[in-house]
């Protein structure tokens, strides 16, 4: 059979190329270890729920690597699910005008919805799907992480598909590339760099949620999955300070490892897909990637992907598109009418359901309460972003203007952004309890603990991008002090700052759900706000109020984005973008 023999050829070619050498051995051990870990981690997943209760999480440091592995595997499972979702949904949105009209705004909104609020629903749903089996809970956790990762990836992929250079599009159409070939040759490579970047951002965000989603209480059911999150929850309940230290250390090790072994190589590899006509001077470097490449293991690592691509190509046996088919055709009016009708019907049904549900369970008073609390949380977010900006903008500019420092500190800022800040919450709680501080004020900084780094590393990037000639000109004319900040530094970093602050503010809203209500042993601290409202409703299994809380928070986040950040962003793009 032709397809099989075609599929085999690259294999043999690679075997011939990979003659063993010393670097091979190192890489082989690394990979074999990784494979073992995957197998071990996966074994525990399909056991019955009863085992879960018997084999409870313990605070034995010897178990910590295993827990870290389980947590990491959940992360990657969710990442692959997000990737599959992205490839299918974003492609559909870009290809079909009608689907795009619904999918694109949906993604935009989902990006702003507080994911932690979902946990209640998803855990119940997945446990119902696999009653009495760990798999259901595992899937719920994976799904929670998925919801924190998928949307921005899909959005970025969609945007890339829509901005494919018109000349390459014309070449593809001129040669009559079939849809599959066009996707593999043009769309996918073009979108890869942005997609990889967004996957990294998604991973960073995901750690926060994996910690929060492993040990959750919904009504009377408490579920703990083996993982760092459960370890942390147990350590908090037992007031075990040392165990928390262990968790922080394990988290740091895991993040460094996945960054060095997975993402840096991927970024270095994806650099070849960057759409530019001149070779850039600074290419992303990665020792792991260089190792894989030197050992000629790279093609082997990419086998699953190249094989999938090749399979798609061999399956794609349709005739080349004819010339007549290449010209655009307008959509039919009848189809459009039917589509609009279907959308309207679905909308009406959804509205009816929501109104019915809300009127049965909630009073207008609930809405007033939720909006009032949202106002409090908003106040916190605004004050904190302002404070963080006052601190990090000058520091970021200082660092960014010194390339040596920027080179060293930029990865650290990115590491801090990826580090799940909720792991550090207990320390703050101990301090607040010890000095008897007001939780309403002193719990607030926790919201921005993990997200402030986005401001820092974006400002660093912005300051490094200020052209040398502008700085030299400013120096020559003796521009100093406030004038220098007003006319050189601040306008220069502003577009970057807006990007960072937007991410930070969205993340802070989300973090409020875990930051406004925290505990240490029996001590419970609570700050009045929408976050603690949602957290309390979740713990009580009060679904209508959880839904209300999420809805109100989504409205606030979206309004924040539309009314504040987007106009600022547009202004920055129009007036302050350098070159």
């Amino acid at each position, binding site marked *: 059979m032709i397809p099989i023999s075609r599929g085999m050829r690259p294999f043999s070619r690679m075997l011939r190329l990979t003659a063993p050498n010393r670097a091979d051995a190192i890489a082989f051990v690394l990979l074999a270890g990784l494979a073992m870990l995957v197998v071990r981690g996966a074994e525990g997943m399909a056991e019955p729920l009863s085992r879960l209760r018997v084999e409870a999480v313990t605070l034995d440091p010897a178990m910590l690597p295993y827990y870290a592995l389980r947590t990491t595997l959940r992360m990657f499972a969710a990442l692959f699910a997000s990737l599959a979702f992205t490839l299918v949904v974003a492609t559909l949105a870009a290809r079909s005008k009608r689907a795009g009209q619904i999918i694109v705004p949906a993604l935009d909104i989902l990006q702003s919805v507080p994911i932690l609020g979902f946990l209640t629903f998803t855990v119940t749903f997945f446990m119902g799907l696999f009653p009495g089996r760990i798999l259901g809970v595992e899937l719920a956790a994976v799904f929670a992480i998925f919801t924190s990762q998928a949307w921005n990836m899909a959005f970025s992929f969609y945007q890339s598909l829509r901005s494919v250079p018109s*000349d*390459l599009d*014309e*070449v593809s159409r001129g*040669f*009559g590339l079939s849809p599959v070939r066009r996707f593999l040759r043009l769309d996918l490579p073009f979108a890869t760099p942005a997609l990889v970047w967004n996957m990294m951002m998604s991973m960073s965000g995901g750690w926060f949620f994996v910690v929060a989603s492993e040990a959750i209480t919904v009504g009377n059911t408490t579920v703990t999955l083996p993982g760092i999150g459960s370890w942390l929850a147990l350590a908090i309940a037992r007031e075990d300070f040392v165990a928390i230290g262990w968790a922080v250390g394990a988290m740091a090790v895991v993040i460094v490892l996945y960054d060095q072994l997975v993402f840096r190589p991927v970024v270095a590899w994806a650099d*070849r897909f960057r759409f530019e006509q001149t070779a850039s001077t600074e290419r992303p470097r990665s020792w792991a990637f260089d190792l894989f490449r030197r050992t000629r293991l790279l093609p082997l690592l990419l086998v699953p992907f190249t094989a999938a691509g090749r399979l798609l190509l061999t399956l794609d*046996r349709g005739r*080349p598109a004819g010339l007549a088919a290449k*010209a655009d055709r307008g959509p039919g009016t009848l189809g459009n009418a039917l589509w609009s009708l279907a959308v309207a019907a679905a909308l009406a049904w959804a509205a009816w359901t929501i109104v019915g549900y809300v009127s049965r369970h909630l009073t207008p008073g609930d809405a007033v309460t939720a909006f009032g609390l949202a106002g409090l949380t908003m106040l916190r977010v605004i004050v904190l972003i302002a404070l963080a900006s006052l601190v990090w903008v000058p520091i970021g500019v200082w660092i960014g203007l010194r390339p040596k420092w920027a080179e060293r500190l930029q990865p650290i800022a990115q590491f801090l952004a990826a580090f799940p800040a909720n792991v550090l919450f207990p320390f703050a709680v101990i301090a607040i309890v010890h000095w008897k501080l007001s939780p309403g004020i002193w719990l607030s900084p926790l919201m921005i603990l993990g997200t402030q780094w986005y401001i820092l590393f974006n400002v660093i990037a912005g300051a490094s991008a200020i052209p040398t000639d502008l700085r030299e000109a400013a120096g020559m004319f003796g521009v100093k002090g406030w004038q220098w900040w007003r006319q050189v530094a601040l306008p220069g970093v502003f577009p970057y700052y807006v990007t960072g602050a937007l991410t930070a503010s969205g993340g802070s809203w989300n973090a409020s759900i875990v930051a406004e209500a925290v505990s240490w042993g029996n001590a419970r601290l609570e700050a009045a706000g929408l976050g603690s409202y949602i957290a309390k409703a979740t713990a009580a299994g009060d679904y209508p109020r959880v839904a209300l809380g999420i809805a109100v928070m989504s409205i606030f986040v979206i309004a924040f984005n539309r009314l504040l950040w987007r106009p600022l962003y547009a202004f920055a793009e129009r007036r302050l973008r350098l070159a």
Partner: protein
Amino acid sequence: MATHAATRTLLELSGVRHHYGKGQGQMLVLDNVDLTLRENEIVGLLGRSGSGKSTLLRSIAGLLRPDEGDIRFIADAAGQRPSVSMVFQTFALFPWLTVLQNVELGLEAQRVPVEERRTRALAAIDLIGLDGFENAYPKELSGGMRQRVGLARAIVVDPALLLMDEPFSALDVLTAETLRTDLLDLWCEGRMPIKSILIVTHNIEEAVLMCDRILVFSSNPGRVAAEITVELPQPRDRLDPAFRALVDDIYARMTARAPSNPVNEGLFPGTGIAMVLPVVSTNALAGLIEEVDGAPFDGRASMADLADQLQLEVDELFPIAETLQLMRFAELKGADIALTPAARQFAQHTVDERKALFAQALLAHVPLAQHIRRILDERPSHVAPARRFRDELEDHMSPDYASATLTAVTHWGRYAEIFAYHEDADQFSLDDPA
């Protein structure tokens, strides 16, 4: 390679019309174009931007379907329909594919077996002079080498008709010349499987150098204004007097007013405030005046000489010259541009005197500038939102043209100090920042 009667016809276009945009501001880009392409000829489509020549090329390539008209490929004796393939101005190479993979792309789309694909691609690479670069990525290549890849990719699929969209205009002068010569050599020696070449250009010398037949397009809307057969034998010599005469002749045809245009309305489409204006900097206007005023031209120059001297392409030179004509600073006579007495004064003036003279000309001859100034004078506040004028323009032209026209008038008005414009407020005013 003059056409002879016995050659076969490859392609017939009749009555092709095409619009861009919808509803208000719809723009007719191609109007009733007829074209016949025969075997063994290089045909040039020569025109300025907005003359629809690229649209026509894309219609033939099947990349867009014109609103009206017929594009008919004539099958050969074996019933084989002539195939087409295209070379792009921007090269349009896939940066993540190597030279070889880029060249193989079209064959891959046709499901040509791997072995044959490789052989044919290597042969094309060899023919175009790219051997040694098979495994290079496009970003490692110079512009000239990249365009060679574009050419190899186009001819490897054995097209009967090669379409070229300003293939040399993104290259520097020397590289473009080398590529042109190489292409002509391959063509004349019959080493490419191509039956005919259709090349879009706005470089008059390039058209005369390469083509057997040149179709001169008028702009807005694009029509075939003239068809010129070039009988000069290949290889052609730019310094040959017959060559120069032909170049001058084409310049003259391109500056000729359509008989329907009123005298001195210039060559811009539309009348009154609805005139579509090109964005031309006042520095370029002043520069051209000074160039023609000084030695060796002394007030009158042939457009071909000017283009040579200033290294400007038709697309750059003509809008400047025509703007000068619109403001009565110059007159286009035949293939020449002659300065008016006002322009010769302008050349001798100081900055402030120049501005005054420019303001006079602007208010007298550019209706839109007049219009904005009058509105500002009439209003007690002396302020008017730019949106108002943009909407007014969009009643007559596409939003893109409206925006370009308003940008041009804003720039001229600011220089002449007849009104001010504030970007943040998006409004015109009479206040003087000083």
